[in-house]
């Protein structure tokens, strides 16, 4: 028994005799491909081809197909091709292989790249409109569910709400405190470092206070919540969609928006202002520590300067934005979750979209609020 496959070609007159030998199996595929290519020209030249299979020691689909392809190559131009000496235990496989790949599939025409780009652009435009529609639909559905709850307060899913509050509020506190603390400290350090040149170190406190309370505190926390909890919502609802749990809920006469989405979004709307407040305090504390150890400003002076620099208005501006950001994050996360289709890839894509979109919208919303508050003089 040969360990290497061979293909002996003996031309006799116009007839080409091919004698494959050894194991024609998938394990030797690279040798087989070389062999079949090497006799290709001979096959084209001769008027008839005989394949003597008696020397083949092992055969699988791949080997059988390569031989079949040689015989078809001969047969395609009207010449005769035949197999002889096919062993009994290979005949079934050879017969099977003769049936396959008979119909040549129409090759897919390569699309025009310019048209493809234009198509993508068009799809994206339509998709953007669809996104807005879905967002508004979800907002409406939430509003309807909320009215239902206000009418019958007992229908509120309290257990679910409390559990979501625990998950996205309570469990998020450590990381929110850590990050906002660091952000506050960094802003203070930069302030002292750069303001020192103008002898305006004391204004660092104004900067930290206003920046943290009005903008950064709530923005950083919202972005973190979007990444941490928004993605979790999308993945949860998406896998529930994939396993038909949401369909099961609907068939039992329950509204998925009411049961699943309202408690989640409500929990976000409640938790985000609290987290933003905690975050702002942690950032001010971080700034205070830097003021003492880096800027050489005693805590009492820091607090006194802070007292002068900031007012309740600044705090209000920051904290008023939080529930709206939470609403945006919740709606985007939940509606993206419901758009998940069958595959695991779709779940991943929708989760990414959810996080990217909610962070983008949070920043846009922050900009709109900045304009709004400036124009009403807050």
């Amino acid at each position, binding site marked *: 028994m040969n360990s290497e496959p061979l293909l002996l070609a003996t031309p006799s007159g116009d007839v080409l005799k091919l004698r494959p030998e050894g194991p024609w199996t998938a394990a030797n*595929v690279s040798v087989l*491909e070389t062999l079949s290519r090497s006799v290709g020209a001979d096959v084209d030249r001769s008027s008839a081809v005989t394949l003597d299979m008696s020397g083949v020691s092992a055969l*699988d*689909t*791949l080997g059988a197909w390569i031989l079949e392809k040689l015989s078809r190559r001969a047969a395609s131009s009207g010449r005769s091709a035949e197999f002889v000496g096919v062993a009994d235990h290979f005949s079934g496989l050879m017969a099977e292989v003769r049936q396959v790949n008979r119909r040549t599939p129409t090759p897919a025409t390569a699309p025009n790249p310019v048209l493809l780009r234009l198509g993508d652009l068009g799809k994206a435009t339509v998709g953007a409109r669809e996104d807005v529609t879905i967002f508004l639909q979800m907002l409406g559905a939430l509003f309807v569910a909320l009215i239902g709850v206000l009418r019958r307060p007992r229908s509120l899913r309290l257990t679910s709400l409390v559990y979501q509050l625990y998950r996205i509020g309570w469990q998020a506190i450590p990381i929110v405190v850590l990050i906002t603390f660091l952000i506050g400290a960094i802003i203070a350090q930069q302030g002292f470092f750069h303001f020192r040149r103008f002898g305006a170190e004391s204004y660092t406190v104004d900067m930290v206070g206003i920046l943290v309370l009005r903008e950064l505190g709530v923005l950083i926390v919202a972005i973190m919540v979007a990444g941490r909890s928004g993605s979790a919502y999308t993945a949860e609802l998406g896998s529930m969609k994939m396993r038909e749990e949401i369909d099961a809920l609907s068939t039992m006469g329950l509204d998925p928006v009411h049961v699943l989405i309202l408690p989640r979004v409500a929990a976000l709307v409640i938790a985000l202002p609290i987290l933003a407040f905690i975050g702002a305090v942690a950032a001010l504390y971080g700034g205070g520590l830097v003021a003492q150890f880096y800027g050489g400003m005693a805590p009492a002076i820091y607090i006194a300067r802070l007292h002068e620099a900031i007012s309740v208005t600044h705090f209000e501006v920051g904290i008023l934005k939080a529930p709206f950001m939470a609403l945006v994050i919740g709606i985007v996360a939940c509606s993206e979750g419901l758009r998940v289709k069958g595959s695991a890839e779709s779940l991943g894509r929708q989760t990414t979209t959810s996080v990217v979109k909610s962070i983008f919208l949070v920043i846009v919303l922050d900009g709109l609020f900045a304009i709004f508050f400036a124009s009403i003089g807050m």
Partner: protein
Amino acid sequence: MDESQEVSAIRVRDLVVGFGRQTVLDHLSLDVRRGEILGLVGASGGGKSVLMRTIIGLIPRQGRSIEVMGQPIGGRTEGAATTWGILFQQGALFSSLTVRQNVQFPLRENLVLSQELMDEIAIAKLEMVGLRAQDADKYPSELSGGMTKRVSLARALALDPPILFLDEPTSGLDPIAAGDFDALIRTLQKTLGLTVFMVTHDLASLTTVCDRVAALADGKIVAIGPMRELLQSEHPWVRAYFHGKRSQMLQHQMR
């Protein structure tokens, strides 16, 4: 002894598998002969799938030896694709790849061959399991249950492995599709000379396709042999399985 090794595709001796305190397989021994279709029956949760997953190396085992094609297998799954193909119960197709890419995946990972040949082999395999070339560019989520099983079978057979494991191949298929699938397995087994290890509850497949049937109860193989012999078995669980109401009805109709 030597002769039995010659004819055994899978030899399991004294296999013990347990999770925590619970022993699922208790000193189990089983021989699967080359070129046969062996059906494995057992209670739900009785360790059928565990036995299959242990043989293919997905579950670490505590007891003795498992030999596949005369070679003892380690706990590793490398190179496994050329030894056996597996049809998982849910198909386990890669959802991010098309049907064609799914079938090509084992080829691409294990062999060096041209894209042209790979395409042809993939289509050949799909046609062998009764699918059309047009289905090759669909994604798994667009397939029906029966098609998923067929594609999964084509993928399992991509490298022409000598052994094929089937985990409940006909579950979730309508009787016509299930019958077709049974016939397909029989045909492929004959054509490719496969050894088939099939976990199933489908009495029709047990009767029509399997050369031998093994019954797993209490962590052991309690009866093994052609369907006729199993029907005569005196073991209480085997009796209950084959002579319960449902089974009686089916067998009555088959007679």
